[in-house]
């Protein structure tokens, strides 16, 4: 049976449409995906992301252990900083993408995808070897709320957490809010300024209601998974299961910028990833916009000169730009570049699209 977050009753009260997502009954929309999307870009939105996983890693070998798991150099972040990482397997394939927060020396919090939580936990246990670390999955203890949009900082201030205490972009703070110990990070999955707040299950409804209440004058709305998907697509953030999977490496997924290629420590998949960075890849992730009137969807085929060269991983509308956009993998052998024309096969007809820069809306917050 599907699991429910501790905010489920709030969603029902707000008349949300509920769907199954990664084994959870989650709100897909409250009013309209497009209205919700636009409201996050213009004002602010509140998301229930309690389905995401929280894994704590601590102990004297915590850093050394984490260094074996990611192509990223975890030693480069200081206390309270966040780092976007991927777990990679022996072939360089992505087991999951996640954010690693350094709370203090040898004390880390990993926020992972709901759909991969069990796999991630098993992966860490499998690779723990003789490292002196404690790996604690506390996903059943904590809920998580994302407050996103340009008005987020003002709303959080109104809710009792003043600006001067708020963490900077890609940082995390452990502090008191509504009389409760919480983790507040300045991260998100929308391309907007905003926060993600991790709080005990028992207190999440109170915080949800408080933020909606204090955010009212700023135009806050609860936002479902539908708009979460269109927001991240516009902001060019990958979705595990669509753009990322175990058969795809960070260089193929356009995540070379996240890899520390001079990292000294050995990590799982290093050989393949370094080789790909040096010699190039066979397939690569591209972003495109439709130039013909049609909508590309996950799984549609990509063509060039009447030959199949790839597949769409995510596609849909961009409510902000009012165009149809998407992502997909193509073979690199055709040397296609930005502005080149490709075709998408939609219901047995080819429609033109143009390869574009990856960030459709030119925002700079990267997160998960």
């Amino acid at each position, binding site marked *: 049976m599907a699991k429910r977050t501790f905010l489920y009753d709030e969603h029902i009260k707000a008349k949300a449409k509920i769907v199954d997502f990664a084994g959870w009954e989650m709100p897909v929309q409250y009013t309209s995906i497009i209205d919700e999307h636009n409201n996050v870009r213009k004002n602010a939105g509140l998301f229930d992301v309690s389905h995401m996983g929280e894994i704590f890693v601590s102990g004297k070998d915590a850093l050394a252990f984490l260094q074996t798991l990611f192509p990223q150099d975890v030693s480069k972040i200081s206390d309270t900083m966040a780092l976007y990482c991927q777990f990679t397997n022996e072939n360089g394939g992505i087991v999951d993408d996640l954010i690693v927060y350094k709370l203090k020396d040898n004390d880390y919090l990993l926020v992972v995808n709901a759909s991969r939580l069990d796999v991630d936990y098993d992966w860490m246990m499998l690779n723990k070897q003789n490292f002196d670390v404690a790996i604690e999955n506390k996903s059943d203890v904590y809920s998580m709320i994302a407050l996103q949009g340009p008005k987020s900082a003002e709303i959080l201030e109104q809710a009792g957490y003043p600006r001067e205490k708020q963490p900077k972009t890609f940082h995390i703070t452990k502090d008191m809010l509504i009389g409760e110990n919480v983790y507040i990070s300045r991260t998100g999955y929308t391309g907007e300024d905003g926060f993600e707040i991790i709080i005990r299950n028992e207190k999440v409804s109170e915080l949800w209601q408080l933020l909606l209440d204090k955010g009212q004058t700023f135009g806050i709305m609860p936002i479902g998974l539908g708009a979460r998907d269109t927001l991240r697509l516009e902001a060019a953030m990958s979705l595990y299961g669509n753009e990322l999977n175990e058969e795809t490496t960070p260089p193929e997924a356009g995540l070379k910028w996240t890899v520390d290629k001079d990292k000294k420590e050995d990590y799982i998949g290093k050989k393949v990833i370094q080789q790909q960075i040096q010699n190039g890849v066979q397939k690569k992730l591209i972003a495109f916009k439709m130039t013909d009137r049609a909508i590309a969807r996950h799984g549609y085929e990509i063509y060039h000169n009447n030959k199949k060269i790839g597949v769409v991983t995510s596609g849909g*509308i961009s409510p902000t730009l009012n165009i149809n956009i998407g992502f997909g993998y193509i073979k690199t052998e055709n040397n296609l570049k930005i502005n080149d024309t490709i075709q998408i096969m939609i219901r047995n007809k080819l429609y033109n699209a143009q390869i574009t820069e990856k960030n459709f809306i030119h925002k700079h917050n990267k997160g998960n």
Partner: protein
Amino acid sequence: MTVKENILCSKSHEYVYEENGSCYIGLTDYAIEQLGDIVFVEMPEIGTQYSKGEIFGTVESVKAASELYMPVSGSVEAINEELIEKPELLNEVDFNEIWLIKVSAEAFEQDIKDLVSYDSYKKEVE
């Protein structure tokens, strides 16, 4: 909202009604509600002949594409051009005031035997 008395609905959520010798085919309010924001409608070419049950077009919401099935056999006499530029009208206008296509039906009486009244349709889906 007043619902036209002669509206008949299919299991795949299209409706059809006859007026002045032509049949008008549209999408039920339940289907529109389930789809959410409609962002694209792909229409057939005028003059195309379809059998009952055949796909005549596609309606796309933010989340997904759904195919449209002919509730009766017939050839397309007209399409609702307005929906090409403004698919969101489907969310904004009473469902039975906004048809998708107009067809000349060949065997209307025969074809509507498995369709149900709007009231029974609503009872089934809700």
